């Protein structure tokens, strides 16, 4: 029924006395409001316009590469501005997102599959239309499958890069042979008391405790032995570092000789000329990062931006900037000269050589283990 017909029927009922004057005028008014809202006038409503998309990431060289290779070309093509924000840590960022209004945050450069699972558990995911992101064809299936394990019927993120948290050591004091011989146990070797570091992240501490006690990080059976290994590390360590900058500073200033470290940051130290070795012991902590679209975001605009960000020239520039290999499959895309030399790079495109955290296992124990670690860290 069109609006004219609806009006004529209302008028007829009014004339017949079936409708009083007040109701008739009320219904006509309501129809007028509905018309104004849903027809051509609606296009003028500002709420419908996507004028900007917010991206939050780790800042620094990554941010610059994104701006030059993805954000500016995207804005030129779509007229949509990209507001570029940064965060210091994934936990802190999730706290911000949870306390914000829907739509305030749009795309985030998140760490790990467990972050993806956490966002999904908090109902912060969206359903991406992959037809709008043709560059997804170039991404390694192994990385995408990890997300499909959590949301089998849809994806709320695209994989972007990967790396490892391996052993970083000062070659002036620790030889390559020694690190290979001792592996993760070097972090609880009394010989290096006061010269050992470690990330203040409960997952990493437990992961390495599992390696030090000869257990599978994705299936720790003897938890008490793992906590005991963490206590040993705590008593031997000089400092728990909290950021990549602090990690680099501690190693570069020789405050510590050995720690676990992020592959990209250690590669950056090596580039700067520091004689810092990097070794991925068996079952070293592998992880991937993704570009997650947060609930309440303009999904289509985000999909278009993700496609720009996944374009080989952007992905490679970002990867070279942050020293982490991109999610692009090296068997499908020419990744240039530098990327194949980066730590953790997998030329096969299968990532079978890396061990990733099982998100169900780790997120299921997060509440208990994160609290226990806070206590163990302080001497309990």
């Amino acid at each position, binding site marked *: 029924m069109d609006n004219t017909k609806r009006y004529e029927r209302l008028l007829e009922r009014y004339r017949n006395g079936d409708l009083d004057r007040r109701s008739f005028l009320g219904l006509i008014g309501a129809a007028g409001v509905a018309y104004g809202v849903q027809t051509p006038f609606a296009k003028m409503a500002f709420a419908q316009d996507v004028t900007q998309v917010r991206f939050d990431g780790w800042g620094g060289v990554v941010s610059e590469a994104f701006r030059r290779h993805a954000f500016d070309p995207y804005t030129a093509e779509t007229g949509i501005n990209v507001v570029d924000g940064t965060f210091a*840590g994934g*936990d*802190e960022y*999730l*706290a911000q997102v*949870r306390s914000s209004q829907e739509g305030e945050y749009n795309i985030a450069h998140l760490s790990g599959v467990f972050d993806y699972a*956490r966002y999904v*558990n*908090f*109902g912060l995911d969206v359903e991406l239309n992959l037809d709008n992101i043709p560059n997804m064809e170039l991404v390694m299936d192994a990385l995408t499958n990890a997300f499909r394990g959590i949301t089998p019927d849809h994806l709320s993120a695209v994989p972007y890069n990967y790396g490892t948290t391996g052993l970083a050591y000062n070659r002036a004091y620790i030889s390559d042979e020694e690190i290979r011989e001792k592996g993760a146990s070097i972090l609880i070797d009394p010989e290096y008391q*006061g010269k050992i570091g*470690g990330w*203040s992240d*409960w997952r990493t501490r437990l992961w390495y405790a599992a390696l030090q006690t000869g257990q599978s990080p994705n299936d720790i059976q003897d938890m008490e032995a793992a906590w005991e290994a963490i206590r040993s590390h*705590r008593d031997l*360590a*000089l*400092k*728990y570092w*909290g950021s990549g900058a602090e990690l680099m*500073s501690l190693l570069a*200033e*020789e*405050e510590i000789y050995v720690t676990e470290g992020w592959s990209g940051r250690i590669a950056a130290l090596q580039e700067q000329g520091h004689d810092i070795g990097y070794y991925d012991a068996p079952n070293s902590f592998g992880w991937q990062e993704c570009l997650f679209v947060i609930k309440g975001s303009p999904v289509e605009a985000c999909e278009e931006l993700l496609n720009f960000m996944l374009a080989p020239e952007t992905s490679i520039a970002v990867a070279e900037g942050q020293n982490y290999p991109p999610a692009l499959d090296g068997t499908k895309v020419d990744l240039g000269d530098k990327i194949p030399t980066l730590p953790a790079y997998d030329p096969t495109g299968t990532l079978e050589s890396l061990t990733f955290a099982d998100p169900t296992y780790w*997120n*299921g124990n*997060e*509440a208990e283990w*994160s*609290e226990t670690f*806070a*206590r163990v*860290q*302080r*001497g*309990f």
Partner: protein
Amino acid sequence: MSVEAREKRQPWILLSPALMAVTLLLLVPLAFIVVYSFWLRSAVGPDIQGFHPDNWQRALTDPFYRYILLNTLKIAAITTFFCALVGYPAAYFITRSSGNKLILLLLLMLPFWISYIIRTMSWINILGSSGALNTLLISTGITSSPIQMLYNEATVILGLVHFLLPFMVLNIYVSLDGIDTNLEDAATSLGATRWQAFLQVTLPLSLPGLAAGGLLCFVLGAGTYITPLILGGPRDAMFANLVFEAIITQLNWPMGSALSLLLLLVLGALVAIYNRFLGMSQLTKGLG
């Protein structure tokens, strides 16, 4: 409206912007935190709403929280003591200096122009293995290898003293500046030595300023979390670090809320005791 009624309303009209700001920015968020503290964290997903005293029960009975709280109060007390020890002579010197008081006060305020984090991190360049002090010790032959000076409770206290000292100096300065110098002269003319005059006249009269500075240093010191994070070792933590970890790392907002309220209550009780015996007016003098 009568003149009397208008005069009665006037203070409230003038106060209303401040009252509104305090209500919206302090009392309403505080009410949210109180409500949150009675919710429960679920293993995954959103928190469980309702009235659950579990977080409070844990915060009040768990020896872990009690240990960290007592350690926090201990660190804050030691920091306050050192601030007073170092701050009093500095404030006395500024008060008694002639002509260059303004420059000295400006120098005192200068650190506030630099980020607190940067100021705290500067100690790494001073006390680190390849920092200024170790370089000096090695180059002068006093030691052959760097001495480990960083990342312990002592450096946390040092960082806090560095951060809080200006608050102490300013409060003592305000107190000392208000004392008539003729009183000291009168004491010496009656036979007291300079030291006796200071101990029996100046020091007692400046105690309210010292106490106000002490309260500020203690409260600010007990509430900090950045300093132990940057300058502390693996075990070093203060109560605010637990609040930070509960909310940011563990995403346990209900427990974090209960812990933050517990810290607020403990520090609030100390402020109330201070107010009971010394009054809050000295604090505002110091801040003015």
